[in-house]
């Protein structure tokens, strides 16, 4: 795959301010405290340091896997790459069209029908009318929605929601693809179909960034692994080496138990 798609991250830090002392924020506070990442900024506000001084470059052709435990900063990094969070320190430069698949719902409105959700996604990607019609056709066929197209997503079965989300997510082919691992975990009945579609999309992309808990998934899809730990880059290199180090760490623990 040759092209000029590129992601350049330099000294990137992302901090979350904890303004709203609601239950949600409290939960975050507790988790962050457990991970030892609480700090106070100049104005004495409590902040969570989700990413600290992260630097790396992804070039065209790279298949980058992000691994790390819960709260390591994988999701924050994905969201920052997707342009949702902006850097608090450092710089991020992205060349090439980017598509981020961060969660199955991806802003889907459960009260709207399948058709309406597809329409919104098409409009979001600025597709023309005939293109939206094709998108609709493609997703309906893949998700096997049939009569459910004109019923609210709220009443869909869990499988249908996943298929719709997956179908939509994989319908638009970008040069840079950013994914959370939910896409890799489908139910058995459609996994084969899904796989072909996913492989098609991934192979069409110049750059893949995939976050996952699972070393097997990362090993299968990626040729480079970035290990995040407490918001910092622990290791960055070929999958064999990084995964071994990553796995080697927790493997020592059972021995002590």
């Amino acid at each position, binding site marked *: 795959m040759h*092209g*000029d*798609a590129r992601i350049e991250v330099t000294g990137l*830090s992302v901090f*979350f*301010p904890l*303004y*709203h002392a609601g239950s949600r924020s409290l939960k975050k506070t507790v988790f962050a405290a457990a991970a030892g990442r609480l700090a106070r900024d100049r104005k004495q506000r409590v902040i969570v340091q989700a990413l600290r001084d992260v630097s790396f470059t992804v070039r065209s052709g790279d298949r980058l896997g992000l691994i790390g435990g819960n709260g390591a900063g994988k999701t924050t990094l994905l*969201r*920052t790459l*997707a*342009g*949702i*969070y*902006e*850097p*608090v*320190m*450092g*710089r*991020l*430069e*992205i*060349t*090439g*069209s*980017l598509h*981020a698949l*961060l*969660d199955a*719902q*991806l*802003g889907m*409105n459960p*009260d*709207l029908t399948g058709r*309406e959700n597809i*329409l*919104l996604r098409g*409009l*979001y*990607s*600025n*597709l023309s009318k005939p*293109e939206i019609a*094709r*998108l609709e056709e*493609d997703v309906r*066929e893949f998700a096997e929605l049939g009569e459910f197209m004109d019923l609210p997503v709220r009443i869909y079965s869990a499988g249908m929601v996943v298929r719709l989300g997956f179908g939509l997510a*994989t*319908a*638009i*082919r*970008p*040069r840079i693809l950013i994914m959370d691992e939910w896409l890799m975990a489908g139910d058995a009945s459609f996994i084969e179909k899904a796989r*072909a*579609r996913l492989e*098609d*999309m991934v192979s069409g992309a110049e750059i893949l960034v995939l976050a996952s808990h699972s070393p097997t998934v990362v090993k299968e899809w990626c040729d480079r692994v970035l290990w995040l730990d407490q918001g910092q880059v622990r290791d960055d290199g070929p999958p064999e080496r990084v995964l071994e180090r990553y796995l080697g760490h927790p493997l020592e623990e059972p021995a002590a138990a």
Partner: protein
Amino acid sequence: MSIAVPDRLRPSQASPRLVFEAGHTSAVRTRLLLQDIIEGARLWRLGLTLGWLDIKLRYRGSLLGPFWLTLSTGAMVAALGVLYSTLFKTNTTEYIPFFALSQVLWVFLSSVILEGCTCFTLSEGVIRSVRMPFFVHSIRSLVRNALVLAHNVLVIVVVYAYYRIWPGWHAALALPGLALWTIDGLAVAMLLGAVCARFRDIPPIIASIIMIAFFVTPVIWQPKQLDKSLNWLLVGNPFFDLLEIVRAPLLGTTAGSHVWIAAIMFSVALCALAWVGFGRARARIAFWM
């Protein structure tokens, strides 16, 4: 496999490049702000559809749909119109058309402001999962309220027909007023949406302010009923100027040039405030969700 959707974001000449950088200078902030508005305006079909679906959803499954709005506004105008014209001892022929028009326009203005407060926080799920220009949310909020207004306009039409009133070609002069409202409506949503995302107790404060404004602005009472010594109530009141530029032409008169000047000055101030306020908040809004 039939994934034939072309990647529109892929221009033939140069690859799109996005740069996110911390520590914005005001020049960078301005560029990013403009980029948000331009990209948002390019997605106008999305904003329009979102606003339209909001209304459709609100009334899905009901027999009359959004015409419930028309009906309830109509009932309110009829009941309160008769009551107030008795209280104020004015004749209904003159008062009720004035009240119907004022009430419908006021409901639009106040809900544009109130719903502007929640235009970002209500889209929390979207803001956290995809990168979308914030301007789209502001368009959505305005479109939603414009659709409500469009349904309520029927009440005015019925009242005018009943009293056989025809404002004449003067009515066309309301169009520049409506254009100014569009700009103000988008600006107020950008400003209040950002401020209210950060400080969650602002919306109730705004609601109280609007409530007071409703009574001190000539909506249920006519400007000419005001004692000369209380004229300052109108002069310092931006709601009056903004309301008047659309209302006067529809009542068959014209808004004075001083009213227009005040309305424009107020709009410029609002846009400037939105520019600065939203410009400063933009990069942080996603963190406040």
